[in-house]
Structures are given as C-alpha cells and as structure tokens.
C-alpha cells in the first residue's frame, strides 16, 4: 500500500510539473509571439472645478478629434468615447492588416469596451483614458460591445468595426 501510494504521488508530481511547464509555455507564447498586451491606463481627464466631465473629455486631446486617424503605414489610431448607451463613432472602417491603437474613455458611468472575437477588452472608467492595440488580420464585421453593466439599455450599447 505504501509503495503504491508513493507511485501515485510521483505520478501526480510529474503531471503537475508538466502542467506547470505547459502553462508557462502558453504564457510565453501569448506574450511574445501573439503579442498579447494588457490594457493600460495612459492618462486621466482632469475636470476643472465646476466643469462637467463631458466638457472636460471633449477639450482633452485626443478626444477633440474622434474616429480613425492613420498614423503610419498600416498603423491607425481609433479614438472613442462611450456614453450611456452608445459608442462614438458608431462604425469605423479599417483595411485588413491594420494595427489599431484604441483610445477610449467614458463621459458618464463605467462602461466596457469589448470587441467580440478579439482579445480587446477594456474597462472604460470615467476620468481615465484606456488604451489597447490590436492588429486585424481577418476581414469581417466586428461587434464592439459594452461589457460592463451600465443601466437600463446596457444591452443595446454597441458599435461596429468593419475590416475590409
């Protein structure tokens, strides 16, 4: 019995070791090869005393210029703001292979920014600018969803990213 227990123990140790190494390899693959990056906080919106948050957002660059801008060969910047219950711009067009930096914030409550079928998933906090970069390799109509419950018509809050 003791012998048997030792054998099982060794078996489980080996299995656990394999799993651990496997996890680390997947992590390395996703971060190095797939260039998975974390959403980051890249700035804040500073409202002056008495100023509304929306006003502060629209005077803070880059939110004074919404939508897609080409910043280099195959490099784009897409600036969004979210408001209950819509994203602006509601639809953008991008070429296949575009590497897009999404910059977004909220003008009222906390929203989500999730592009279904991609790893783009950020939380949009009022007063905070969130940013994430993604390369669209496949053409299609990508659904941009609000992922954080934001009130009565949360389920209708969406926009489209069209990659041609």
């Amino acid at each position: 019995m003791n012998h048997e227990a030792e054998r099982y123990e060794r078996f489980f140790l080996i299995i656990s070791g394999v799993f651990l190494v496997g996890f680390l390899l997947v992590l390395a693959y996703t971060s190095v090869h797939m260039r998975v990056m974390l959403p980051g906080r890249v700035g804040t919106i500073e409202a002056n005393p008495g100023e509304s948050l929306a006003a502060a957002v629209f005077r803070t660059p880059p939110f004074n210029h919404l939508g897609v801008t080409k910043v280099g060969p195959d490099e784009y910047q897409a600036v969004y703001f979210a408001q209950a219950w819509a994203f602006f711009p509601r639809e953008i067009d991008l070429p296949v292979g575009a590497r897009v930096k999404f910059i977004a914030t909220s003008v009222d409550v906390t929203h989500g920014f999730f592009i279904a079928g991609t790893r783009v998933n950020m939380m949009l906090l009022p007063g905070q600018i969130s940013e994430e970069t993604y390369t669209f390799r496949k053409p299609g109509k990508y659904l941009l969803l609000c992922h954080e419950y934001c009130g009565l018509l949360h389920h209708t809050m969406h926009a489209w990213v069209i990659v041609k």
Partner: protein
Amino acid sequence: MAAQPKAIPAEYPSYLKGDPISWLNTIDHKRVGVLYGVSALFFMMLGGIEALLIRIQLFEPNNTFLSAHVYNQVFTMHGTTMIFLVVMPLLLGFAANFLVPLQIGARDVAFPRLNALSFWIFLSGAVFLHMGWFWHHGGLPDAGWFGYANLTERQYTPGMAIDFWDIGLLILGVSTVMTGLNFFTTIVTMRAPGMTYMRMPMFVWSILVTSILILLAFPPLTVGLIFLFMDRFFGTHYYQAVAGATPILWQHLFWLFGHPEVYIMALPAFGMISEIIPTFSRKPLFGYPMMAYSLILIAFLSYGVWGHHMFATGMGPVADATFAITSMLIAIPTGIKIFSWIATVWGGSLKMTTAFYFALGFIVEFTIGGLSGIMHAAVPIDLQQTDSYFVVAHFHYVLFGGVMFAILGAFYYWWPKVTGRMLSEKLGKVQFWLTVIGFNGTFFPMHFLGTWGMPRRIYTYGSGMGWTFWNQFETVSAFILGFAFLLMFINMLRSLRDGEIAPADPWDARTLEWSIPSPPPAFNFVTVPSVSGRDAFWARKYGTGSHGAAAVASAGDPPNGEAEAIHMPEPSFFPIVLAAGLLLCGLGVVVAWWRLIMAGGVILFLSIIGMAFQYPTFGQHTHETEAASGGGGEDLRKVGLWAFIGSESVFFATLIATFMVYKSRSMGGPGADVLEIPLTSFSTFILLMSSLLMVLALAATQRGDKTWQRVWLAGTVLFGLIFLGDQAYEFTSLYHHGLGFTTDLFSQCFFTLVGFHGFHVFIGVVWLSVLLVVSFMDRLPKSRALSVELAGLYWHFVDIVWVVIFTLVYLMQKVKGA
C-alpha cells in the same frame, strides 16, 4: 449500530418545544439557527424564482417577457439575495449556529443575546433590501450585485432603490460581523475540556477561519457603502471623476471584501464536506493537519487576490502580474483539500447515502469551477472572459456546484439532528440526479456562450448571434434544477409530517453532536463532555487504537438529575425590538422623514439601554464563564473585544488608505494648509494622558481602591470630553476657513476619517461614564476589574488610532506643505 450513549431521560424536552411567542425572544443557538434556516429557505425560493425569470427572459432572442427595467432588478436581486440572504445565512446563521456549540461540546455560543440580535438585524436588513417594492417610485435595486460606482450615484440612478440596497447591505454587514465575532469567541473560549485546536472537528476549524475572514473582510465593504451613502445623501464625491476622485475606488474596496467573501462562503462548505466524507467512508479525515493549515493559507491568500476581478481596468503590468501569481497560488491549498477528500474516500467502506452523493458531487463540480478559476488567473485569458457569460459559468460552478452541493449534502446529513425526523433517501437520490443534470445543463453551456462573446447582464440578444440554442437548453435545464428543489421541499414537508423518528446517531458518525438526542434538549449536554482526541464521539464508541473503548466510554455518561443545576441565560425581547428600531431608522433616512428616524432612534436607544441592564448581575457571566472552562482560559469578553478591535483596525486602515490616496488628487479647496497643528498637538497630548489615567483607574480597581478608581475614571472621562470639545472647535474654525465637508476630496476624506474617530471617542466617553456611575453605585469592586480592563482596552485602541491619524493626516501634510 454501535453502542449508543446512555439515553438522556425523556423529561428533558427538545429545544423545539415551546409556544410560538418563545421563538421571538429565544436566545438558544439552535432556535436562532432554525430561524435563520427558515428565513434563508424563504429567500432561496425567492432567489430561485428570480433565477427562473432570468432564464425565461433569455429563452429566445429579442424576448419581451420582462421589461428591461424589471430584468435589471431581477438579476441584481438574484445575486444579492443568493449571496447575502441565502448562502451566508444558511452556512453561518443556520449550520454554524446549530452545529458549532454541539461539536465543541458547549451549551450555547459565547454571546447568546448578540446571536439573537444578529438574526433579527439580518432579517431587518433582508426586509430592507426589498422595501422598494412598496413604493410607487421605488422598485428594487438595479445596479448589479456588485453595484459598480459611479452608476450607483444619484445622478445616474435616482430614486430610492439604491438607497435601500446601500443601507440594507450596511445593516446585513453589522449582523454578519456580530456573527463572526460571536463564533470566533465561542470557538476560542468554549471548547470542551481536552478539545485542543488540533482535535476540533474540521467544520469548527472552517468556521473559526471564516469568522476571522468576516471580521477582517467586511470593514472595506462597510467603508465603501458609507462612502456611497455620503455621495448619495450629503453630496460628497467619493466616486465621481469630476472632483478628481475615481470610481475605481469602489472596485478596490468592493473586491477587497468580495474575494474573501467568496471564501467566507466556500470554507464552511469545505468544512461540511470534511464532516460528511469521513462519516460515510468510515475512515478518519485524511491529512487532518494539512486540511486545517490549508484553510488558514486560503484565508491568508484570499486578501491578496482581489485584483483579478479588475484586470480589464488597466492596473498596469506589475499589479496584473502580482495578482495573477497570487490567484494561481491560492489553487494550491485548495488542491490539497480536494486530494485529501479523495484520499479519505479511497479504501473506505462506503455507505452511499444521499448526503454522501452530494459530497461526491461537490468534489467533481467544485473542481470544474476551480479549474475555470485558474484560467481567470492568467491575464491574457481573463481579458477575453471578463464580464462574459464564461464568468457566470465559473462562479456558478463554485457557488452552486461547490457551496450549494455542500449545503444540500449537509442538509441531508444534519436534518435528523435538527428535526428529529429522517428524510426520504429515495426522494433524496432522485433530487441528487436531477440536480446534477439540471445544474450542468444550465451552467456548462455558459462556458461556450461566454467564449462566443455573450456578455453577462444583458436583457436580450439578437437572433443572428447564434446563441439561441444553448440559451434554450439552459432554460430547460434550469427548470429541471428548479424541480429538483421542489422535491427537496416536498421531502422536508413529508419528513416533518410523518417521517421516521431519527435516532441520536443515525449515520454512525464521528462528532459530538451525534452523542446527544435528536433533536437535542435546550441545554445540549447534560454534562459537558471531555475530549481526548479527534473524532471524540467515534472514540467513545469504538475506542482509539490502543486505548480501550470502555475507558473512554464512561467519560461522557451523564449523571441523572444534574440538569437542574444547568443555568441557561434568560430569553430576551430586546434583540427583536432593537432590530425593529434599526429598520425604522433606516427607512426614515431613505424616505427623508425625520419623525421616523427619531422614532427608530428612540427605540434603538431604549433597547440598547434595556439590553445592557437586563441581567441584574451587571458584569457577571456565571453560565458563560462556567461553560468557558474548556477553552484557552481566556475570558470570552476579552477575546470578543480583541476580535472587535481587529475588525475596527481594518475599518480605520481602509479610511486612512482612502485619505492617503485621495489627498493628492484633491483640487480647489484650501487643503491641509488650514489645519492647526498647535491645537491638535494639545488634543493629542490630552488623549495620550487620558490613556495614562485609564491605566491608573484599572490599577486602582485591581487594588480595590474605590476613591482613586472614581478619581481616575472621572479624569479619563474629562480628558475625553476636552478632546471632543477641541475637535468641535477645530471643525467649526475649519469651516470658517472655507473647508466644508463637501468642499473637495481632501476635506471630505478628512472629515470622514477624523469624524469617525471622534465618534469612537464619544462611544468611549459614554462607556466610561457608565462605569463611573456604576462605581458610584458601589458596584465596581475588585472582582469586576475586568469591566474596567475592557473599557481600557477599547480606550487605548482609540488613542493609538489617533496617534496614527495625527501623524499621517496632520504632521505629514504640514511637513510636505512647508
């Protein structure tokens, strides 16, 4: 069946006997437990109906079965109800209340009246959450169970619903912390003679660790809810970006509570499983020490993992990596438990009862939930799953597949002890299989839906999404699950009406609760049992290895007639009255009707006074101190106070941390420049001196020196009053310098922190004044020095907090400003 312990004569009635009124003023831990259980079952039906409504609404695309407004209320209340009104009261209120004293061989919990108070406050909090129903413009809360700021601000969610949610949760928090304090003290001080920590049943271990978690995890939630309250009622800006604050503060506070909360629900479930599996495997629990240590390790790590709820907020790579690692680490002690349960079953002579079915089901389903939990620890994976239906699948596997299966197993296991009747095993097994089918059918496809992009908390979805089939599959399964619960209720009713009478030990079990009749008498044990090893009752029945069975068996035999000498505390109506006062008070605040606040406040105040003077022998705890003989020898009031101080420390730490974060983000107001250091230095000196006087007062009491006792006590009260007077003056002068409560972030954090400290000083002054009065009544002799010592402990704690506040809030701000 093995040798039964000698039957206790029939003249000791069961704890269930008594007229209906006696349930309202009861302070018997078993009755309080049953009250909790009955209420939780009611709310379980409510929460279950809410779940079915959600599933009906999602049955087909673009469904309009519910309106979006109602749907949002339903899913918010489903989460809030199931967590705060079902799972926690079932685990802590019902199971722990009923079982812990029985398992440790005690006659009641440490503070029986506080226990009853916990229940009534719980009930008033639960009612409070649902109050919105009764108002035309109210409605139920609709911001989700974790109520993310700033959606909960009045600007975005007007109306009373969130007010009811906020204050309701505050009330429930008070009840839970009192419960945690009570169980902590009970387990530390009231174990039967010989029951060391390493001999306690594993369920008791789990409740001990859970109590510590409650004491240290609830304060952040309380603080978060207080901030929300201030934002909604007083116009502060704790969660508003316009003032430089950030709504992410709520997420930090909420998850700092929220993740330990997951373990507050899971650990008692682990404890239950650790009782059921050894009984039906007829083997001792495998790896007992590791099982105990892994509980502690889980509790410790659970404070360091809250960030994995917030990967999508952009905390930065360092924070993300840290939380990813801690979240993976916590899987290790959990894995130890799963393997130990499997090892316990291995090679046992299994008795396949319904309870055991559910325990085995627990291992499988909980492991699935645990594995999807580890996936969330990996940040890249989590980023695709955050707020999707995958998360819903994950936590239902943990909370239903894990915790609920354990509760159902425990229900079948302990029902005979609670009611004295057996449940139908046949019906139970049908229920088990229907539960397994319904549960997996409902929640497993959510993994798929989540991966395909279906978000949680959506009212409806389009027909082109390809989500229809699995949603319909889930809805059908959910009804199977609902039917399984219906069978449980039928089983219960059948058992109560004409179930088989349960013997004292129907399962041939291992722990002390099975050594007394089912249902137990009011005082539990005729004589307090003495314990000489783990599985005390098993040892009494079968002996432990080398020791002869006979030698141990005689130890617990009750000499007849001794029950007359058992002194049980008297019932009390004050808990229910006090809770009613609290309910009125809260209601008055929400509907802004000051007469109601006053009425509630008067009831509250009078019942507190009444409660304090209910026992004429002030400061004497005869029955309790006698029963406490088995524990570590510490007085239970002292242990209770230390537990309270621990909880308070976290409360102040949270307030101070918020101040430190927010002070630099403040804009507009005069900030720290207007603080007056000379004045507060004087206040600080006075408060420190009062601590010295307190020490002298205690020394005088211990000497039995009445005169100096009065002098020093009066001195302490006086110095406390001077401090409060200084503070009142300071606040007024700050106000005149343009630093009002809502001026800016600095001022609101400052007044909240310093104000709450001042309130604590005020409570201390009241406490010491009462002692002074008692001293003048000549009722504070040497033998009651402990009463003075306790007040002193509290007083010193409040002083130490002040030293921290003075340094961080006053001195350091000034130094920086200079």
